[in-house]
């Protein structure tokens, strides 16, 4: 077992980091936070670099990167608090299309995503905050060659801006996924905790789409669950990156900031907080990359691993946001300092796609089941 990046993976990590250092510096996240800029230009840059195609299969004109490579990109993206539809399109929409549509249909739908012409997102949760397909109650009803949808979806990432929304609805007793043009739904955005990660509530009531926009055949519960394992792992990887950035800022600051005539990093109360942050980040890191590996290999542990990754990233963000902000002192409590850009990205990672506690309880139930078996 070689649980470490290959040379190629390390090279990718360096390349991605260099690109994001140049294209997504803190000034970009800040400009987005200040409402002076949206993420459109940055997205076009990523399209130019073929990032949307990265993890898509070659049949859909993708580059066919594996999940470990994708996780490397996501971690770096969190580390830069990069804005834009990369996460929703590549780690939510694309996996759900790939899982729910038949192979031919998927390739056809994903090719424009790979080309950067289409962005997408998914609409599953209806307010419970569990993203559990069993709790979906929105419906679709056949009407001639059309489907008529009813229901409301919550916490849809980029729900107000995505070109296409893959929506989970019940049709004739089965859970199905329907592709809905973003322009056809009513989307309401709140005021986001992290202006680089925007959610919307979308109302489907009366939305009419051609029935050919129904993906695949038969019940899609498993397809949704499998796709969400990818989405959840992606959120964990982004959160990990944000935590790493918080840690890097504070670990450096503790060496520079002089109080009582010495760097504050020489005080043990500060040291021990830093050691705990480091521990929680490394714990999350190995669990995130383990989850990526199980997705890459479609290993049976993927369900467990995705939840462990999400929960560990949640525990790491809790520690890093709390102690990172505390150790920065007054300067971290300001809008001018960059720290909050990453604090926001980390905290949002906890708040969507199931809390750390929800995922921990799922991990425990899975382990109890396999122990009883």
């Amino acid at each position: 077992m070689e649980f470490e990046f290959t040379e190629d993976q390390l090279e990718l990590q360096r390349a991605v980091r260099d690109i994001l250092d140049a294209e997504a510096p803190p000034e970009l996240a800040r400009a987005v936070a200040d409402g002076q800029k949206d993420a459109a230009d940055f997205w076009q840059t990523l399209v130019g670099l073929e990032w949307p195609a990265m993890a898509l299969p070659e049949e859909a004109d993708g580059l066919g990167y594996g999940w470990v490579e994708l996780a490397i990109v996501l971690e770096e993206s969190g580390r830069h608090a990069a804005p834009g539809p990369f996460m929703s399109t590549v780690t939510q929409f694309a996996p759900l299309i790939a899982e729910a549509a038949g192979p031919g249909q998927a390739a056809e739908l994903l090719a424009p995503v790979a080309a950067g012409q289409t962005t997408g997102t998914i609409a599953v949760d209806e307010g419970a905050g569990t993203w559990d397909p069993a709790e979906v109650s929105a419906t679709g009803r056949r009407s001639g060659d059309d489907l008529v949808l009813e229901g409301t979806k919550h916490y849809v990432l980029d729900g107000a801006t995505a070109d296409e929304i893959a929506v989970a609805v019940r049709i004739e007793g089965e859970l199905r996924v329907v592709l809905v043009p973003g322009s056809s739904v009513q989307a309401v955005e709140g005021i986001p905790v992290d202006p680089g990660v925007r959610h919307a509530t979308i109302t489907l009531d009366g939305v009419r789409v051609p029935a050919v926009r129904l993906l695949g055949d038969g019940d899609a519960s498993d397809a949704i669950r499998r796709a969400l394992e990818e989405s959840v792992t992606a959120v964990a990887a982004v959160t990990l990156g944000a935590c790493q950035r918080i840690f890097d800022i504070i670990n450096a600051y503790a060496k520079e900031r002089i109080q009582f005539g010495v760097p504050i990093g020489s005080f043990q109360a500060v040291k021990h907080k830093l050691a705990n942050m480091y521990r929680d980040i490394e714990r999350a890191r190995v669990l995130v990359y383990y989850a990526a590996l199980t997705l890459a290999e479609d290993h049976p542990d993927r369900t467990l691993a995705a939840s462990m990754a999400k929960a560990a990233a949640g525990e790491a963000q809790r520690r890093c946001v709390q102690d990172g902000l505390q150790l920065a002192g007054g300067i971290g409590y300001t809008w001018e300092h960059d720290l909050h850009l990453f604090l926001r990205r980390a905290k949002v990672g906890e708040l969507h796609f199931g809390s750390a506690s929800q995922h921990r309880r799922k991990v425990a139930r899975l382990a109890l089941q396999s122990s009883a078996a």
Partner: protein
Amino acid sequence: MRLTYTSEVEAFRAEFSAWLDANLPDPASTTVRPRSSGDIPAWAREYQRRMFDDGWLVPGYPPEFGGRNASLYEQAVYWEELGRRRVTQSFNPQGLGIVSASIITFGTEEQKHRWAVPIMRAERTAALGMSEPGAGSDLAGLSTRAVLDGDRFIVNGQKVWTSGAHHADVLLAFVRTDPDVPKHKGISALIIETDTPGLERRPFQDITARQPDFNEVFFDDVEVPAENLVGELNDGWRVCTGSLAHEREMLWILWSQGLDQMLDAMLSQLNDGAGAGAADDPVVLDGLGSSIMDSWSLRLLGQRQLARSQRGLHVADQSLLKLLGSEAQQKLALLMLESLGPAALDRTVPPGAQSPYESDRSALSWADRYWFTFAGTISGGTSEIHRNIIAERVLGQPRG
């Protein structure tokens, strides 16, 4: 990155596994139990000797010293096989893991054959004399004095906590040989026979109130031959940190296995309805999930460290692994103890908790198990000391 070992490593595992099938003692022959970590019963001595002779005791060593020059990954699956079968490598862990390992690293050829090999072949047992009443975390502040007088040292002073010393044949003792230089520069390492006149051992019980393992060891003009010096005179700090490095290098595997055994016990007890349906309590489930993540992350961090040392990279995570492993055990024991509530008031050990090939320490009630986890967070460097080490040596913070 991948999830499986190479076929060569798997072949190594299969070979060791077949050896264990053929050589593990009959459980019926294991009724005589070790009395302390310095005591190995006859059946276990015989078994440990066979491991040495067949090159399975310390697989990373050359055949001369009980190994077969195994690679790091081979050593890892070796530990996995022992853990899976709940077989301890030696009932005198500090003798094999620290004392003989230090002599192999720092001793002369003569010392290796005279002291290390008999300890490894379980002909003799050894204890580790580092800590003193005035020198715990600040080990370099030790004051047991040794004065070179011709061809012998005269030793005076006291050690404490010396695990298993009352049954051990020898001690590896760290002593002050030069009091006039900075504290790290005046320490030497001596091998001391425990039956030397003037050496007195007083065993005492630990918090779990079992057979004593701790000792106070008093030295009153104890004469030690000069040839028993391990390493150079006044270079004992290097031996000391080297011996702790031995202790820490693959230690994560033991933390990981100890944690997994506790976790398995907890899962099956909860499934059996322990703690009046604690398995349905969301608070218990929440804590249990975190402990399961501790277990996985410990194993993965250990594997990452292996991959890094295999590539010849500097590995810096020993303190992290020790901290994570020891505190994860404590967290889990506390969770189970409090999940059981009044059912944990009875310290009776559940039947079937014992493996015949393991130290009896594995058979504990959850209350005693919880106390016992403090042996992990205190010895081998306390958690506070490891946090300091991480902050200073891994994260680069200034010394306070």
